[in-house]
């Protein structure tokens, strides 16, 4: 008798061209809170999706209480007793709290839904979780934190034995998180097995008994949280040994920032988006915004580009106060932005490489001042040559390019506008190693040769350390440290991200 509630052994999952999981083991005991950790693309969410029946595994076994299961849909997984609460609440905002908990399995009387019973049972269920709210109001009346708890209530009531919480705290403040943790601990005492996925180290350490670490689709190991120092945890996640900072030496050239400040942010923030960040971006500087996923990196970039409105603090461009009001306003200040989600916010899939490259430039010129075709072709060809974009021709559709080449096209789009500041949000995610190195070098070259300022955001610490001369470190949506000059090292960065208690 092993006593394990859930045993996943040698799980394999392959997507066309990518091995998402190879030989991953995962064990969960009843009455345990187990964290699943890893950086982007480590395979956490794939593992969870295999468990919840969203994906089918290609190999391996899943046993629950010793019996093999193979859920094919989320519904089947639920019937096995596996419930999931996702990062974005998967409930209906227009229905009442009580209905959200019971929809699909409402208690009935004479064939009609018995609303009194629905409300009473919902009230009782939430009280069990120490949540006292009016269950007859619609879900959108309540904060995301409460919605999260309501989602948990629904999950728990479906007689769940295993509860998966996928980044439940990413949009909660401290107090809300505290309340959520109380509920999770309460469920733990009732003997439920809980899988907790979060990027917040602090939370993993306060809440979880065990942690399983994945990297590049492989198992790194399973550890007792209390016996694993923070620094070591981060080292294992990013695949570095503690103290192994020698790789720095080969970094080679870096940019040479000038005295002149291009952009200065003083305590900028936006409600629900970012707490506070200060930074000074010099001309000719490659500055990095570092932190784990969800720490506010992308949000900072989006504030600078005017995608979200800033409601605190002030911005200065070349010493003059500036209030960003939409992307076009930022473009007029000569700022360019390559967004993190290339597919959703970057490429226009059905257009050609040429059209994608000249898009921002044309937008800046306006509808009427059309760039003649010959000119477009020249710009596109220049960019293709300069950035070594692999295409069959400038009129190939961008959606048929590889990820790395798509990224280069988006960068080319902004270079064509001749920006003074280029923000690159995760420009190297999901692209091959060779292209990665090219993009890093290009960022440095732009700063050095053209005197451009570059904001570089990446999950890979190595890359950040190699590329940037200054690092703004964010944790929990606020700036916690700034590393500059010789202080820029993987070691220091890891420590800064891990926080004081490393």
């Amino acid at each position, binding site marked *: 008798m092993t006593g394990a509630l859930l045993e996943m052994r040698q799980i394999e999952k392959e997507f066309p061209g990518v091995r998402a999981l190879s030989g991953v083991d995962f064990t969960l005991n009843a009455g345990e809170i187990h964290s699943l950790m890893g950086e982007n693309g480590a395979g956490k969410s794939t593992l969870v999706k295999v468990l919840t029946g969203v994906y089918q595994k290609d190999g391996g076994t899943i046993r629950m209480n010793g019996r093999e299961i193979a859920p094919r849909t989320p519904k089947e997984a639920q019937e096995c007793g596996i419930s999931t609460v996702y990062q974005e609440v998967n409930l209906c905002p227009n229905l009442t709290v009580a209905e959200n908990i019971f929809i699909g399995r409402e208690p009935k009387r004479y064939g009609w839904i018995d609303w009194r019973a629905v409300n009473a049972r919902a009230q009782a269920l939430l009280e069990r979780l120490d949540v006292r709210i009016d269950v007859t109001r619609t879900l959108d009346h309540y904060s995301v934190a409460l919605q999260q708890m309501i989602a948990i209530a629904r999950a728990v009531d479906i007689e769940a034995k295993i509860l998966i919480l996928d980044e439940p705290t990413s949009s909660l403040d401290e107090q809300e998180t505290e309340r959520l943790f109380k509920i999770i601990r309460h469920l733990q005492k009732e003997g439920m097995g809980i899988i907790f996925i979060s990027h917040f180290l602090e939370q993993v350490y306060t809440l979880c008994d065990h942690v399983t670490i994945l990297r590049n689709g492989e198992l790194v190991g399973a550890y007792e949280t209390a016996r694993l120092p923070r620094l070591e945890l981060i080292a294992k996640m990013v695949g570095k040994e503690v103290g192994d900072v020698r790789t720095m030496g080969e970094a080679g050239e870096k940019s040479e920032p000038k005295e002149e400040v291009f952009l200065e942010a003083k305590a900028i923030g936006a409600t629900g988006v970012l707490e506070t960040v200060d930074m000074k971006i010099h001309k000719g500087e490659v500055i990095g915004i570092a932190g784990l996923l969800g720490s506010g990196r992308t949000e900072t970039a989006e504030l600078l*580009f005017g*995608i979200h409105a800033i409601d605190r603090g002030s911005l200065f461009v070349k010493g003059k106060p500036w209030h960003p009001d939409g*992307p*076009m306003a930022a*473009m007029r200040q000569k700022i360019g*932005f390559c*967004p993190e989600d290339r597919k*959703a*916010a*970057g*490429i*226009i*899939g*059905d*257009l050609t490489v040429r*059209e994608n490259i*000249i*898009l*921002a430039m*044309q*937008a*800046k*010129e*306006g*509808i*009427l001042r*059309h*760039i003649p075709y010959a000119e477009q072709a020249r710009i596109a060809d220049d960019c293709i040559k300069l950035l070594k974009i692999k295409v069959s021709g400038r009129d190939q559709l961008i959606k048929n390019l590889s990820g790395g080449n798509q990224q280069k096209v988006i960068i080319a*789009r902004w270079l064509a506008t001749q920006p003074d500041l280029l923000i690159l949000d995760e420009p190297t995610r999901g692209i091959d190693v060779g292209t990665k190195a090219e993009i890093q070098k290009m960022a440095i070259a732009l700063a050095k040769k053209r005197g451009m300022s570059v904001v570089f955001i990446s999950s890979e610490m190595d890359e950040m350390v190699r590329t940037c001369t200054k690092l703004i470190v964010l944790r929990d949506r606020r700036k916690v440290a700034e590393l500059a000059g010789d202080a820029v090292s993987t070691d220091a960065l890891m420590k800064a991200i891990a926080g004081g208690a490393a």
Partner: protein
Amino acid sequence: MKSLKRFAGSSLFLPVVSLLVLLLFNACFVDGFLSLQVTEDGRLYGRLIDILTRSSSLIILALGMTFVIATSGIDISVGAVVAISAAVVCMLIGGRGDGVAETPMALAMLASVCVGILCGAWNGLLVAKFKIQAVVATLILMTAGRGVAQLLTEGQIITVYYKPFAYISGVLPGMPLPTNLFIALLMVLLVVFLMKRTSIGLFVQSVGINPTAARFAGINVTLVLFLVYAFSGFCAGVSGLIESSLIRAADANNAGLNMEMDAILAVALGGTLLSGGKFYVGGSVIGAVTIQTLTTTMYALGVSADQLPVVKAIAVVVICLIQSKKAQDMFDRFKARRAKKHAGGKAVDAL
């Protein structure tokens, strides 16, 4: 062979082939369908010319509709806007029996085109600014617009006796072809000019394919949407002139009736996806001619104007199914399964 294959894959394949099939059908069953004659005063005359002339207002509507559909919207009010525009021009010129115009014709025409633009701008305001779904926004004008047209004509059919008015859809002395064909040509050239000399095509496609990415690249999505609907209104306004001149009257009930469906059909047939994105002006133009040929053919077969929508409705559904990704996936899977079965059968044979 190779060029044939390339043609089969191009956006023009469907409209051109359906047009050819229809023409062939007509050539076989309608006497003198292909014959062209020149009258004494140098006018070209024949059934083919007739079809082309009749399709002029549809071509113009299809041009506007192409842009709207490319932004993944729709404008079902065009028929009603045609009626309003027709009402305005006839009302201004007036139905005086002695054939005198109450307002100079040029002014009246300008006014009615402006009213068309105004209608389009109203749609654009609702869709772009208030973010109302395009169908509902344009449905309002589709139904209420006929009411407005009725109001302008006071429920009467205004017949215009002013002679030059007939020239819009008739033949100017000394010209070989009717004027409306030239108007259509002019509109096509205008669109071609817009496509070549401005970036509207690029912006419209970007907004239709990926509005988020378009916004991130600095495109003013609201403005693009607004302009597109305003342009569709402009096209409907011009069409209204042609339609009213054709019968020399404003009939608020029947002017532009069911034309929204024809325009949508022409655009879809021309290869533009109804879900938006890439658009093909040439395809839409040929699509419009094809639809007009279909209409003429159906009339020849004894189908009346009010029965015709049955055929067109079926055509729309069929084109939707052809365009549908899901249907394509299903078809691919079906083919794969059959291929598998076939291969399996062979393997068994080999044993």
